[in-house]
Structures are given as structure tokens and as C-alpha cells.
């Protein structure tokens, strides 16, 4: 997928930002291959793991009225790409983590298993709690670096060609 500059411009023009502050969306001049998850073929997770991962990631960052969630942003594919090209340690941790979730979910709903694991976020004690940290981090990293996450969900409007430095335009703060 080539950089979606048109999409980006469309999103930009839909914001309330005054046009005179945005001269042009700046081009990615680099030669690195772009992220292409639309046609991604999973190489690491099995179809079963992939389905479970999709469910878990969508629970962590769900679709809502504001924007689509992790599944639409193809975060599971992002995870497969990173894990399959990552370390042996990460690969075994993800296999084991998903297996632990799958086992726990045979006796209770997946939502309840996730909730329990997330309860330990501040100080993980169990295998599920520890895996939750990795799972959430991957979901956050994948989602908010997708065009959907950063542009549509967060409304990022930086990386622009401006003629002056963006300062603060809140009258209540400028005087400090």
C-alpha cells in the first residue's frame, strides 16, 4: 500500500484547522518499503490463533461511534509481521500466551478472562497477566501507528509545512 496521501489530505481538509496553517501535506521521501497489511498473509499465527487474537485485540481497542477498532486497522496482521520476524523468545511467548487465553476461555467467556488478566496490569502476577502487557502494547502500537488510528481516531495534524512555529492559541494559557 503506497502512502495514502489523498486519504490524509481528505482527513486534513475535514478538520476545522484553518487552511492557511497547512500549506501541504509533506511527502515521505524515503525509500523504505511501506506497510502493506491489506493483502497480508499470516505466516506465524495459525487460523485458530489468528481468530483469538482478533477477538482479543478488538476487545482492547474496539470499534465505536468515533472510529473503527483494532481489527479494522489490521493490528493482528501487524502483530504477525512483527512476531514472525522477531526473536525466538517473542515467538514462544506469544504462542504460550495465546494458548493460555484459549485454555482459560474454555470454562469462562473470553471477556472475563481478559478482564481478569487486565486487573493485574499494574503488577502482573500470573502468566495471563504478564501476557496481557505484551498483548496490549502490541495492540496500542499497531493501532495508533495505523493511518486509521493516528489520523481518524486521534486527529493527528502534525507533520505539516508551516510558516511559523505552532505556539499556544488559548488566551487563558498564553499569558503565563
Amino acid at each position: 500500500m503506497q502512502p495514502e496521501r489523498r486519504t490524509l489530505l481528505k482527513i486534513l481538509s475535514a478538520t476545522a484547522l484553518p487552511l492557511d496553517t497547512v500549506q501541504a501535506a509533506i511527502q515521505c521521501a524515503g525509500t523504505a518499503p511501506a506497510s502493506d497489511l491489506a493483502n497480508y498473509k499470516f505466516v506465524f499465527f495459525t487460523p485458530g490463533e489468528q481468530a483469538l487474537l482478533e477477538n482479543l485485540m478488538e476487545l482492547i481497542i474496539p470499534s465505536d461511534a468515533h472510529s473503527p477498532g483494532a481489527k479494522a486497522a489490521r493490528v493482528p496482521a501487524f502483530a504477525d509481521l512483527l512476531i514472525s520476524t522477531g526473536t525466538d523468545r517473542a515467538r514462544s511467548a506469544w504462542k504460550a500466551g495465546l494458548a493460555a487465553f484459549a485454555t482459560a476461555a474454555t470454562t469462562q467467556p473470553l471477556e472475563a478472562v481478559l478482564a481478569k488478566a487486565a486487573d493485574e496490569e499494574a503488577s502482573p502476577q500470573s502468566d495471563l497477566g504478564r501476557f496481557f502487557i505484551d498483548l496490549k502494547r502490541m495492540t496500542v502500537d499497531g493501532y495508533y501507528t495505523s493511518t486509521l488510528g493516528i489520523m481518524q481516531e486521534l486527529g493527528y495534524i502534525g507533520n505539516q509545512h508551516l510558516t511559523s512555529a505552532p505556539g499556544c492559541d488559548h488566551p487563558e494559557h498564553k499569558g503565563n
Partner: protein
Amino acid sequence: MPSPLYDVAVIGSGAAGGIVTKELCEGGAKVILLEAGAEVKPHQFRTHCMPEDMAFRGYRNEKQELFYPPDLKDSIRYEQSDNVSVDRIRVLGGRTVHWNAVVLRYSAADLREHTLQGIDVDWPISYDELSPYYDRIEKMIGVCGNDDGIETLPAGRNYLPALPLRCSEHILRRDIAPMGAKVISVRKALLTKAYDNRPACHYCGHCMDGCDVSAIYSTPGSMLPKARRTGNLTLRQNALAREILVDKTGRARGVSIIDRLTGKEEEVRARIVVVCCASIETARLLLNSKSPTHPQGLANSSGVVGRYLHGHATGQMQMYLKELQGKPPSNQDGALDQCLIPRWDTKSYRGSYDFQVNYQGYMFPFQARNLRGYGSDFKRRVRDMQSGFLMMGGYCKVTAHPDNRVTVDPDKKDAHGIPIPVVQFRFRDMDKEIYAAMRHSALTMTEHLKADVTALPPLNPSGFASHENGTVRMGSDKTLSALNSYCQSHDVKNLFVTDGSTFPTSSEKNPTLTIMALSLRAADYIKQSRKRGEL
């Protein structure tokens, strides 16, 4: 076949080498600039790439990978060290193509810590001697900022208009004022208006990934065009210095280089050699340059080469200011860090820290990892809180200790057959005291700021945030230092070292401006000596 005889061989094209090369070329010397890396042209920079423009969304350092070629792999070792790392970029321009361009003057007190605080050593040069060189460098490179009237952060006389504060930084200024801390516009080698045939900054917010328009100072964008115009510059890229060669009397006669592309070794002959490879590589090169006249390595009769490695200890904090949460998204990228909290406790060495603010950019919302929870509520909070994001890093002085050092391992060689550097570094009690004082201030700030704090500086420091200094220190006593105050080797009169390795001590301030000022002073000295026929 031996090379032509150059007047000067400059090794390394970063902050030090760029200044020395331009100055000496303009002074009429035939200069060969040896750079281990190769040019990455501005159109190759990945500055403006959004995460999706890169296969791994930037998580595999894709934004900067062109600056770090694969032959750097496994070419350094840390032994019995605390959590420190050094930046060993390999590209034309060195770290001037990968920096935030914060340029702060050392103060008179920073150069006299032994006299004033009873710690470390005094520099063999005073602020009054250095100040004219700061003036000239600031004019040369273009610096934005203000004279804030702070004695411990002396101001220049030629500043371009200062960067404005963002809303979060105005709030920071208001709320930490009761602590005695000030928030000022940062001083950066960044053009807030067109200057010296370079355009003004366009505030894309990605300075660290290479500035494609040279609004940030860099050697290739600012100094090399001037050096080329003289007709005196020979640039040799992919030239890895293996050893500095000496004649029978022990004077430097040139540099043995390995061409990284062909693997061939050659001798580059020069009347004067100036080493500008930064603390680790400079010490490595000198220690690898052993000869019968210099059995401990070059410029090392004192035994100090490689010793007294220091730099910055750092720790970061992140928070979301309540006052700004829920505000509509705004363009916060700007010029990355636009403000600075200078050192404010100036009475004790324990106050030797400052805070740099908002230097990580907003394109990658990595900070969401640190917000607890998940689900719809988590997603909404990430969105609502984003406008209130504020991050800061404390930068602390690290003392100069002889056992914090770089050595070379003759049995372990890099991809080109050159013995690798070995770093041994431990934070000492004073370093931990200063870091603890910084951390205490960081916690106090969070009490003054109404914010959801998601990360605080960890209990233990990490170093050096690319600000490593020392290893070839200057001094008045030849038995305790390697260089005089003109960056000239005590032992080898036609050998100079002008990078951060020359620093006898570090302050909390970023070192680059001082590296440049020392380089300019050394270049003046070389020019005058050449005129007198001494070198």
C-alpha cells in the same frame, strides 16, 4: 601508491570535524576530510514518513537506519557497566544529521567546578577565553533563543527569534514557578527565519530524522558547501581510520584508512591530523595507534586516553495535563523541544541537572502504552487526553572518574579487522546523588501540576543520551591530561583532538556548542601556527 601530502587530515565529519574542516579550508589549507560513513542525501531522509509509510511502522528504527550501516553490528562491547549506551552513527555529518540541535553555553562556573564545588577538575580554559568562540559559532550556525538573564546559562548576542511555547509549556511555566524553576524558550541551532542561504524551519516536528531543508544545522548542509567553495577540500567517504601513523620521531605522518567498500587499506599522508570521532571512537583510534615511540597508544604518555568517560544521566517522565484534556487536536509537532527548564539550584553540585521538554514528537503516540486499562473507555481516554500530553527528560551531570573508561580488545575485531572498543562504566555516588535530586524535582513538579502522570524517571539512571564526553581530556598538567587547551596533544605537536572527548568535565548542558567552540579555537590555533611555520 601513497596519497598526496595534505596539509591537514580531519577524521570525522560531525559537529567538531565540520567546523575544523570549513575553517581550515577557508584559511588556505589543503584538507582531506575522512568520514567512515557515506552521504545520505536529504531526499533519502525518512523525516516526513508516517508510520504506515514503513513496513515495521518505524519500530525497527527504519527512520534512521540509513545512518547506522550493518557493519556497526557487534563492534562495541560493554563490560561491567551500568545502563549506558553510546551513539555510534556512521554517516557523512555524523550526529549533526541526527540531532535535536540544542546548543547551550557552558557557564564560567561549569569550567571551575573543582575550585567552586570541590569536585572534578577545573578546565584549562576560562569562560572569558571561550566566550568569543561561542559568539562566532552561534553566528556561524544560526541559533534561535533569548537572553533570559540567567547567569548559569550565559546567552549569546546573535540569536534568531525564539520559539514560542506550546499550551502545555505555558502551564508548566505557571505551575512550577513556585519551585524556583523557569521555563524558557530553548536555544537551538534551528533557523526561525532564513539565514546564511538556508531556509527557515517548516515545523514538521521530526528534527531527529534528518532535516531535509537544512533548517537545522548540519555539517553537510552548512559547512561542506563553504569548504567546497574554497577548492581546498577533498572529501573521502567510507574511509574508516584504523590507525594514525607516525614517523621515526613520533610525529603524526598520516592516517591508515580502510575503504569500507573495497576492504583495501591505504595511507593518507598529512602534515597535521585532527581527530573528531567522538569519545568512544577517538579513544579507540588513539589506543589502536601504538608504535615504538608511543607504546601506550598515541597521545597517551599520561595514560589518561580512554579514561574519564562521562556524559549525561537521564530519566524521563510523561503525563497528561488535566487542563488540556478534551481540547480539540492541535498541531503540537513544531520544532520538537521548544522550551527548556535550566538548572535552578546553583548552590550545590547536586543541582546540576536541567529538563528538556517535549522532545519526542507526536507522530508515534507511544505514550498510550502507559495508560492503564482497555476497551471503549481506554480508547476514549487516549483520544481525550492526547491534547494534554507533556513529556520531559531530566539531564544530569555525571562526574569524571578514571575507572569509567574505554579500552580496546586486540582479540576482538570489527567487520574491517580493527580491534573493537570496550566500555566500562559505573555511576558513582555523586552521580547517583545528582540523579536522585533530579528525580526528587520531577516528583515535586508532578505535585504542582494537575496531571495524570503515567511515567516517572526510574529509580536508577541511564546514560548518556548521545551526550558522552571525556576519554582524551585536556588539562595544564601533561601527566594528568592528553591535550592542552588548544586541543593539541601534549606528546605529538601535529596531532589535535577537538570533539567531546576533550572535555575534562560535563555539566548538565548539552555538549555540542562547546565542542564546536573548542574546534573553532583549535582551528584558529592551527591557522596561526601554520602561518608561523610551526606545524
